[in-house]
């Protein structure tokens, strides 16, 4: 029986979907479609300025109105979805890979690697992360790639500590002891016996983290340190909207709703995955 086939035995409850997961995945899928097919779906060019039609309220031609330079907000929102999702998924992906790997090493080997990694975690957790991000971004060029890397490199400590704790308790469990006694090597112990049992909380943390990363990216863009205009981002549309909040509510409401639903989508997905993977949660 091949090793990859073992990973399909994830759920084992017989139930493939539950309501939370369905709702979450539906929302995420909606945003994904918007992001991928932004070009096809946009009624206008997101960068095309039309100073004659500045700050128009939502209408048939511009379903979400226009911004201060006459650009169609809906088209900008659709293109911004791609930015937010990419930043969310990639940055949390980086953090998850780093955090899980370091947590596994620290928990499994103990001793010097454990001490070094955990002290690094302690040091990083002392910094207020958002301000760290701000500082770095202020020195480097603020663009999408840098943001992804920064968020990724600053979010791994919490996960590393959590994974280490799980590995420590798994090491004492009887099935891992039994595998150790069978003479299996470290690779098999880590990847076949320990990692799959750690993966459940990691996957859930990933989904929830994407929501947080989207918020962080929006906040950075709102402060002018994230995605720079004319490239659209929900955050920088909000930034523009801040100036005209009394006369152009659509510039604040629509990006706000988009961020809200994107984060909810990923949070529900994370919660749904947790329910799906935990057979004991039932009834």
């Amino acid at each position, binding site marked *: 029986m091949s090793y990859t086939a073992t990973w399909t035995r994830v759920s084992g409850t*017989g*139930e493939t979907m539950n309501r939370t997961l369905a709702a979450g995945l539906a929302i995420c899928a909606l945003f994904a479609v918007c992001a991928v097919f932004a070009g096809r779906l946009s009624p206008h060019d997101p960068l095309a300025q039309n100073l004659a039609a500045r700050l128009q309220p939502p209408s048939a031609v511009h379903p979400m109105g226009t911004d201060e330079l006459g650009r169609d907000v809906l088209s900008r929102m659709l293109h911004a979805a791609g930015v937010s999702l990419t930043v969310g998924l990639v940055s949390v992906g980086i953090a998850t890979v780093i955090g899980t790997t370091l947590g596994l090493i620290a928990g499994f080997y103990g001793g010097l690697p454990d001490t070094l990694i955990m002290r690094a975690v302690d040091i990083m957790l002392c910094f207020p992360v958002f301000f760290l991000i701000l500082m770095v971004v202020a020195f480097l060029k603020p663009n999408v790639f840098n943001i992804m890397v920064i968020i990724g490199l600053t979010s791994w400590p919490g996960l590393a500590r959590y994974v280490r704790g799980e590995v420590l308790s798994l090491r004492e469990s009887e099935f891992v002891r039994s595998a150790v006694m069978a003479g299996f090597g470290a690779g098999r112990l880590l990847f076949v016996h320990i990692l799959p049992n750690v993966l459940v909380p990691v996957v859930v943390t990933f989904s929830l983290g994407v929501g947080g990363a989207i918020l962080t990216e929006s906040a950075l863009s709102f402060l002018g340190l994230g995605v720079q205009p004319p490239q659209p981002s929900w955050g920088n549309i909000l930034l523009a909207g801040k100036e005209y909040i009394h006369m152009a509510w659509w510039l604040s409401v629509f990006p706000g709703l988009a961020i809200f639903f994107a984060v909810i989508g990923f949070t529900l997905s994370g919660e749904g995955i947790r329910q799906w993977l935990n057979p004991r949660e039932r*009834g």
Partner: protein
Amino acid sequence: MTEPVLRFENLGVLYRTPGAAGTRAVHALRGFTLQVTRGSRVGIVGESGSGKTTLGLALLRLLPRSAVCSGSLTLLPRDECCGRAVDVPVLSGKALRHFRGRHASMVFQDPFGAMDPVLRIGRQIVSAIACHRTLRDGAEARAFAERLLERVHLGDPAVVLRKYPHQLSGGQLQRVCIALALAHNPDVVVADEPTTALDAHLREGILSLLDEAAASGSSILLITHDISVVGSHTDRTCILYAGELVEAGPTADITADPLHPYTRLLIAARPTAQQRGAPLTVIPGNLPDLSDTAVFSRCIFLPRCPDRLPVCGRSGPPPVFTRDDRTVRCYRYGGGCGD
């Protein structure tokens, strides 16, 4: 004493569990009828899946909310503070809180799981006492708690009160749990496998505490999977299989002369030193699926029964046959007297 204290009439418990194809209904207990007299000790013997734990939880109203009960469960308390008869399934709120601890209590299998690990023993006992009794001050509470611990023969009660649960051994902690259960002299004490988590040599001590409780008027329902435990510590025994009561009667009669094939196999399966070298009798097959109502249309033990008769597969489930003080659900005893 032959006055009844507890009456189960056709008690049934249904668990609703979610599954791959929607919700399944598991009939964990069906048609359970029993009358318990005051001060008597009744053993409920069954293996996992027999419904014995469900029975105990039903009496204490500790079943999950998704469980559905049918039939009736009545308690006739010693003092009439809540009327002559208490209908257990309809209790709620204050009446339920009064019932639990004052009229019925439970001793669980794992003493370490039953006690709060971060509170001292003394504090847990005092708060349990204070639920049903007004205490004047701390000194009276402590004195009461010490008397309770003396009642379960724990040496140095004052020292024990100051300890945390993890500082006691399993046997000592189970005695504390029994003390808690007996604190208000309840009418019924349900002991769910009280000695299973303990070493064999501690068994006698714990069970004799329950005997003393019975002698002072609290009836004991001793739930266990090991028929050798009921031998000297119960007056009557009920044998449960897959949610049905298959045999009941005085313990001495059942152990000496078991009627139902399942009871006979259960007794024979226990290893003793005399049987060295010989393979043990095994009960072949597995428990039936209790969510499949088709299995209830005939004798529940039929697939695994070594003594089946042609009539067993053809007619419905066997009715209850009574002989002297014993009841058995088996077609072998159709005549009503003798086999």
